[in-house]
């Protein structure tokens, strides 16, 4: 690698003028962003999670801001893969940048089942296989802590699609490097590092949690060093590109993640605060690097 890292990237055989991807769950299905000019500066969009059946999502309140970060308990709310294929993806055809579809499931087979249905569409360039949502399983446990399960999920997906896919891992337990290796063995063409860290807030006066499932996914710019470390570990261990996810709030954060070994860099929470974050980050990066 050369330093400072280049802003233009090659990923999955395509040229990207921006390394910034809009993270799953914070950019709808892209179609909602279409008219909003939020995609200027974005290299790619990742859809919110799609499951086989419709999911209402978790009981509200689903968000809680703590002094230095945000807890979310969305719970993979989505209308199910058939509705997505019929009603949401056609609208995404006009996106000015590539779309990845984030796929979630509750069993090893569900991932491949969802992907099979999505194969009817041609608007997306690939998938992000979300084996790591902390807001679905009971107690915040995630699927992707077991490399064996990750392997089987990846193998299942490989069988039903020729498109590239990234496997999005959890930082909440297990061994991310082993899971990443298993994903690659199963056919993954990238690893997303990583989903949200498990977090919780309790009202000490009452012992109650605003969020009904108690544990939730925590995001914060203060988590950047945790993500940098994990991106560095995983990118040194696997041959496929790493997509970072987490902790970005400034242009130099994106550059740091690229320097740590990420090929592309997702933004989630920042995008929720700044709809035009992708363009803003690109401006900051260009100023910093002179590129």
């Amino acid at each position, binding site marked *: 690698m050369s330093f400072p890292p280049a802003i233009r990237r090659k990923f999955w055989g395509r040229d990207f003028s921006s390394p910034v991807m809009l993270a799953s*769950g*914070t*950019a*709808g299905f892209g179609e*909602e*962003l279409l*008219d*909003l*000019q*939020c995609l200027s500066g974005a290299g790619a969009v990742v859809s*919110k999670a799609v499951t086989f059946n419709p999911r*209402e*999502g978790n*009981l*509200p*309140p*689903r*968000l*809680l*801001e703590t*002094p*230095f*970060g*945000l807890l*979310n308990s*969305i719970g993979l*709310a989505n209308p199910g893969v058939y509705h997505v294929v019929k009603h949401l993806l056609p609208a995404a055809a006009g996106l000015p940048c590539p779309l990845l579809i984030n796929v979630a499931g509750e069993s090893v087979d569900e991932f491949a089942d969802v992907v099979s249905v999505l194969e009817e569409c041609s608007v997306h360039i690939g998938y992000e296989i979300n084996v790591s949502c902390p807001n679905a399983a009971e107690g915040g446990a995630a699927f992707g802590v077991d490399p064996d399960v990750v392997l089987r999920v990846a193998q299942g997906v490989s069988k039903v699609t020729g498109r590239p896919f990234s496997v999005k891992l959890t930082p909440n337990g297990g061994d991310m490097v082993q899971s990443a290796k298993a994903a690659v063995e199963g056919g993954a063409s990238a690893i997303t590092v990583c989903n949200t860290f498990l977090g919780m807030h309790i009202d000490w006066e009452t012992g109650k949690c*605003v969020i009904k499932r108690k544990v939730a996914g925590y*995001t*914060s*710019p*203060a988590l950047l060093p945790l993500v940098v470390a994990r991106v560095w570990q995983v990118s040194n261990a696997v041959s496929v590109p790493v997509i970072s996810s987490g902790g970005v*709030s400034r242009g130099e954060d994106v550059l740091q993640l690229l320097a740590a070994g990420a090929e592309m860099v997702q933004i989630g*929470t920042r*995008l*929720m*605060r*700044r*709809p*035009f974050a992708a363009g803003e980050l690109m401006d900051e990066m260009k100023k910093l690097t002179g590129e």
Partner: protein
Amino acid sequence: MSAIRDFDCAVKHSEQMLPGVVRIVFDCAEIASAAFPGQFVQIEPSPDAFPVTRRPITINRLTKNGFELLFDVVGRGTELMAEMKPGDMVRVLGPLGIGWAIDPGSSWLLIGGGLGAAGFQFLMDSVVSATVLIGASSSDRVIPLEACHVVTEDGSLGGKGLVTALISEKLLDETDSIAVCGPVAMMEAVWNTIPEKHRDKVQVSTESRMGCGWGVCDGCSIPVSGGGYKKCCQEGPVFPGVEIDWKRWKEAGL
């Protein structure tokens, strides 16, 4: 959804209007000219990293070259907003959401609880005729609105009691549209007071903890009748009262 726009707005004026309640005026012709009553803006409380999200506040009224907000200081975000001084530049996203559905020429009954009446001025300025009922815990929680009927729980202003006491069959008969805004418990009490046959007239302005404010995060769910949720920020914040699943909404809490 129409395009959203993010502006650096100058603070024109800021004052403590009631204890713990701040009135702030921003200059921004673009937001003012695009806004409808019942819409809100997303304020960035600080250019710093924290808080990580913005704070949603209803547009209380339009001013000559901008708009006015009224807000309660309840936490870190609103504390930072209370410190904003004339001349400060603040990031404001808006106008956002779907406001009151206004039929031309219709006569309105506005029922507000405390700071829930923030936003009523804009609505009053936009309709031909409006009767306003306000309930509050005490006089220092009552937003000054013209010709409104006030009750307070401690009797410090107007009659002593709850706003539901001001609702009469006669008022409901005379009105085409009913706007309700306030704490969930107050809104539910109002809803329960209004007889079945008048309920189709009711619109409620909902609140929810928000992430984005522009429809992408699915964080601001309001439980709706028949199951499922709608997004407060994009499909609301104003909803027909009949659309709300009051039971599940009350259980949710804020």
